[in-house]
């Protein structure tokens, strides 16, 4: 099999294999919706190229037309045509069914794990000196107020953790507090679950609004204790540069 139609098909398959399987080897996998968009663009491009003149149109679509019309076919070709003609309506029927059938899944919710903080909590510096006495005090406060959920090992596995949805943050994971600045933690601890913006599902978080119970000094020292205990460092702009 050769000609523009085969080239087009090979090109499409090649592009798909490249973006679906080869690209993830060097970078993050593309979302399925983006892959679909790229494939649609590639397909449109091939169709545009193939229909630029009457002769290119004939060489691109001629085999398809001849296949579909069934003129002069026999054996395998005839069977293949029959299969296509039967499968196409079935596919449409199946697609109709899957798009209309009621879903048994509860409504999906996409939660933003680290939403943007309000302006007044951006770039605040910890006013307490990072020394052993303050760290120890912070760890003591952490043990009293935070560890029941976030765990004595700062791993989000406290005795109360397993009933919560979403689960308490695991500070030892490099994807949590190591990615955040101290001012961000100050916001999260002070305002708690009810301080979250709508994209972060404020109605599900059990994180207390600690400003009602703890002075700012305790919160800043808890942050110090948390970083030290979890063996992480706050994100700073200097290190990024």
């Amino acid at each position, binding site marked *: 099999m050769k000609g523009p139609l085969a080239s087009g098909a090979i090109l499409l398959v090649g592009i798909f294999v490249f973006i679906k399987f080869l690209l993830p080897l060097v970078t993050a996998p593309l979302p399925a919706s983006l892959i679909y968009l790229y494939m649609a663009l590639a397909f449109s491009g091939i169709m545009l190229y193939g229909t630029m003149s009457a002769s290119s149109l004939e060489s691109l679509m001629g085999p398809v037309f001849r296949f579909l019309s069934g003129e002069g076919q026999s054996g395998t070709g005839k069977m293949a045509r029959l299969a296509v003609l039967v499968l196409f309506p079935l596919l449409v029927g199946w697609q109709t069914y899957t798009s209309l059938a009621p879903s048994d899944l509860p409504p999906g919710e996409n939660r933003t794990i680290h939403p943007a903080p309000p302006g007044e909590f951006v770039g605040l510096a910890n006013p307490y000196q990072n020394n052993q006495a303050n760290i120890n005090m912070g760890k003591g406060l952490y043990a009293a107020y935070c560890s029941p959920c976030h765990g004595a090992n700062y791993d989000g596995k406290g005795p109360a953790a397993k009933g919560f949805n979403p689960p308490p943050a695991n500070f030892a994971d490099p994807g949590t507090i190591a990615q955040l600045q101290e001012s961000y933690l100050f916001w999260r601890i002070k305002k708690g679950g009810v301080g979250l913006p*709508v994209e972060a599902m404020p109605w599900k978080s059990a994180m207390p609004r600690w400003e009602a119970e703890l002075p700012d000094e305790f919160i800043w020292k808890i942050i110090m204790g948390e970083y030290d205990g979890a063996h992480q460092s706050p994100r700073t702009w200097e290190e990024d540069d």
Partner: protein
Amino acid sequence: MLNILRFLSTVALVGLSGILGSTEGFASDPPPADEVGASVSIRMYQVQGTLPADDPNSPQWASVPESEFNLAPQVHWPERIQEVTVNTVKVKGLHDGQNLAILLEYEDPTEDPKDAAAIEFMVGDKKAHFAHGQPMLQVEGGPVNIWFWKKENGKALDMSAKGFKTLSTQEKQDVSATGAWSGGSWKVVFTRALKTEDEEDVQIEPGDWRSVAFSFWDGALVSGVPKEKGSQKAVSSWWSIRAEPSADNSIYGWVIFGLALAAAFELVVVRKLRKGQSA
């Protein structure tokens, strides 16, 4: 004529690629992996005939699929508690098109007058915080409807809240509940009409998902005081619940319509192609 044919077949190919794309999952991303690892929803199945609405031990419950949810001590606001008796709850639901029955089954080693259980629902379209619908700082929340059963009087209260210290018993009581303790576990069945006239109540429309949460109190006395009371209780966060809708057979009509339309399209294309080629 040939141009129309080419146009039609191009449309067909693009359409086919779209159909293939969406059925192969190209068009939508998979849902995120479930972090919690237990059930995420409760489905209340429709029964023909009697609902076991006042009998937690009815054999009718045995064949109903159950959902299981982990519970946590209430630590969100004071007075907190660090350890609770009830750590998981199994939930089953049924409805008959008019009324619903929800069965909660959970372990509690002792039967005490102060033992209690509650089911909470979001009311209306606004999301509400699971802690009694307390106000949120950046989002305007809605109210919650709480069905509260206590062993002491064997009754359920139909309650409302929108924030701490706003919990109140509704004027119009629509809920009833029956509890039975046996061998270290409680079975409590709550019942209510799917829909009520009361705008403070959650309205259950078969087929629509609602948000639901649970609370439990172990009323065993420790030094003369109940071990768990008030805000000291076992809680869950929000999960999803729905009354299953009646089977909708109109779908099959649309499927047949789709099949027929696709077959007719093929017929037209093939006929035109043949004419074009013989011409």
